[in-house]
């Protein structure tokens, strides 16, 4: 007991939103039958878009490569159903714009590409060969940010990684995709982690899981022993945003990623549990990222479920499978309620970073008109980055962007803790995003 208490380190700030995980945490992952048409955007990751190598009329099988990456920080996308390429055109994307997408009509045969083959000797591959397979499989971080995985796994030589952290915190309320993945596929996750450790050769490794998932902690501990990797499974106290990269590193190692820096600046590298499993699939089975677990939840969905969904599946197809949405559903969100992105078109496709499809009822969303700041200071106490959200809010809204920069607007991780606690319901994160965007635009202009 004394030891486990001493391990309960944490970060400053944070909030405790209602978890609402009970809606889906006991629901095993179901396979969602593929839709008749998938829409696969050429850009689903942070970085340069990839370029189509197929044309309308081509027939494709699951796992066939559809695009070529256009730079180092870029990954390809793959066919997720077998069938015919119908069109290559701009389609609505869940990040809010229209993005060039490859539309495939399924032939119903669901046949896999011949290139997808198990490799019994995968463990003897070199680190570079593994990275190549990871890139070829189109992997981008599946926790939500979707940064190309092979880039993250290629730290520059002057930034040695001594600590690897597997992120199973899943601190977003409502979402249980990672939780179910750990319960049902612990071994594959740990096998993926073993490959990461082989590539990076760190001195220590952690698996961080919030302690509202003690069953997952136990399962992962068992898997770690079984697979034989040297990693410490740590139950972290439930506090949002425990799974944010910088906060997770702080909680587990006590190290603070410097302002404007990256985890590798403090010798750390973090990967999500879903990504680790995809790495195993990519390296050992040469299997590209064509599907992922998505939590379809919120009280606005008739039957909440955890689904294994093909990339490119329209949200509406998944929602229909879950019985549709209720009368009082008002908000459709990709991701969790704290950082997810509100959608206005249910035809947008599931992409690599889609961890959840959340439908909130009027009661859950509690839409309110913003009031005025009464300087209660709750946002400052909640901010895990040590910022003054209300001050930034008024600086940005008065277009005093340079001062906002001085006050640290660029350090904001957009976790939403401030706006969650604000009694005046000010759109604080909205202001932060605006401030960051405007500053980014200026920096670009200045070169």
């Amino acid at each position, binding site marked *: 007991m004394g030891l486990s208490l001493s391990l309960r380190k944490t970060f400053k700030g944070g*909030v405790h939103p209602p978890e609402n995980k009970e809606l889906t945490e006991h629901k095993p992952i179901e396979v969602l039958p593929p839709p008749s048409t998938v829409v696969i955007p050429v850009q689903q990751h942070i970085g340069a878009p990839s370029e189509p190598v197929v044309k309308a009329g081509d027939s494709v099988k699951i796992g066939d490569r559809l695009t070529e990456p256009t730079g180092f920080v870029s990954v390809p996308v793959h066919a997720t159903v077998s069938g015919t390429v119908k069109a290559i055109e701009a389609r609505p994307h869940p990040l809010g714009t229209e993005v060039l997408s490859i539309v495939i009509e399924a032939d119903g045969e669901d046949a896999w590409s011949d290139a997808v083959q198990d490799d019994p000797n995968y463990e003897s591959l070199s680190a570079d060969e593994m990275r190549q397979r990871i890139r070829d499989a189109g992997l981008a971080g599946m926790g939500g940010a979707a940064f190309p995985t092979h880039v993250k796994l290629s730290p520059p030589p002057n930034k040695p990684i001594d600590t690897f952290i597997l992120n199973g915190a899943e601190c977003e309320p409502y979402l249980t995709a990672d939780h179910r993945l750990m319960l049902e596929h612990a071994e594959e996750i740990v096998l993926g982690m073993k490959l990461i450790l082989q590539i990076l050769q760190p001195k220590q490794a952690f698996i961080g899981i919030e302690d509202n998932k003690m069953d997952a902690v136990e399962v992962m501990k068992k898997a770690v022993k079984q697979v034989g990797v040297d990693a410490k499974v740590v139950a972290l106290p439930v506090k949002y945003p425990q799974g944010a990269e910088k906060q997770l590193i702080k909680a587990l190692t006590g190290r603070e990623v410097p302002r404007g820096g990256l985890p590798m600046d403090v010798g750390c590298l973090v990967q999500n549990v879903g990504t680790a499993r995809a790495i195993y699939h990519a390296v050992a089975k040469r299997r590209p990222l064509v599907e992922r677990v998505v939590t379809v939840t919120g009280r606005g969905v008739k039957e909440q479920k955890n689904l294994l969904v093909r990339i490119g599946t329209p949200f509406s197809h998944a929602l229909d499978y879950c019985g549709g949405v209720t009368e009082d559903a008002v908000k459709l969100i990709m991701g969790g309620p704290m950082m997810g992105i*509100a959608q206005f078109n249910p035809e947008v496709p599931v992409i690599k970073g889609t961890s959840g499809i959340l439908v909130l009822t009027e009661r859950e969303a509690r839409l309110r008109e913003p009031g*005025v700041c009464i300087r209660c200071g709750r946002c400052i106490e909640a901010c895990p980055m040590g910022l003054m959200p209300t001050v930034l809010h008024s600086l940005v809204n008065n277009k005093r962007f340079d001062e906002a920069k001085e006050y640290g607007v660029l350090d904001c991780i957009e976790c939403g803790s401030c706006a969650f606690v604000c009694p005046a319901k000010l759109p604080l994160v909205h202001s932060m995003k605006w401030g960051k965007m405007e500053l980014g635009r200026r920096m670009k202009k200045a070169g």
Partner: protein
Amino acid sequence: MEQRMWKVSASPHLNDKESISKIMWLVAASLAPAGIGAVYFFGAHAAWVIFWAVVAAVGTEAAIQKLMGKPVTVSDGSAFVTGLLLAYNMPAESPFWLPIIGSIFAIGLGKQIFGGLGYNPMNPALLGRAFLLASWPTHMTIFKTAPHGGTISGIDVETGATPLNLLKLSQDVLRQVKINPAEVPAQKVAEATEHISKLYDAYGNLFWGKVGGCLGETSVFLLLLGAAFLLYKRYIDLRIPVSYIGTVALLTWMFGGTDGLFTGNPLFHVLAGGLILGAFFMATDMVTSPITPKGQWAFGIGCGVITVVIRLIGGYPEGVSYSILLMNLTVPLLDRWAKPTIFGGAAKK
């Protein structure tokens, strides 16, 4: 899927159940024990002072918002709280027009002129009190009603002086003796000594509220009940009350006696006067106190220093209101100085 209009907004898509009006009305509720106590100790007149102050505060806010063509927001409870706090800072026997004028000033020139809730630099209720104290000093400083089951001074002497005032008068006598013994009659000295020793024995009366004073400030017990509720709800934080009261205790212990350093009585100074009301309910006003933890510590210490300077050196027996008002003016500076450390800001790149 059928067509429908989905609502779109920036994240987060959840918010907790707090709201400004919930905070304000619960602050008002936390002041209820002291208000009920005021009516018990000082009689129905106290209820009328509270009534007129609240009605005038709410009415003034509504009238100004109407005139300015702005939405009327009196239901948020903030004007109600201002009226309540102003009344608590007035003698129970105030004529009915006094709280009315005070509230009109507090809301009109203390709050609405700056743009209303959230924009006022100083605590409106205290500003109203300061205005009344400057304009009708006799009405505001002479206490005629003895509390139910007690005396104005809190001891068995009927003087019309509140405990702090009686202490100040008595200590002045003792100090005079030291400078010019020939001019002070021995009887006066004996009387002053006796008063001080009795005052320093009257903790019970001070704690329960069996002393004279402004109607809402006298019962430490009832005020602490409300404060405990606010602390439990986390609407106030201990930083300001602790630093404020701690500073007053320390400085009055050091300098509050007549026999040299560390001969003062800190407990008496903490329990007497308006310190508890001020430290828990007025210095903690969200709008007019610093927004960062470090700033709040500094703010409380500043309030404590000014209070003690006024109590021990100034012309008034009590300095809580002015100390808070003066410190309100330092808030923008404190906020600028006391920025929290940004995550990763201490680490070297």
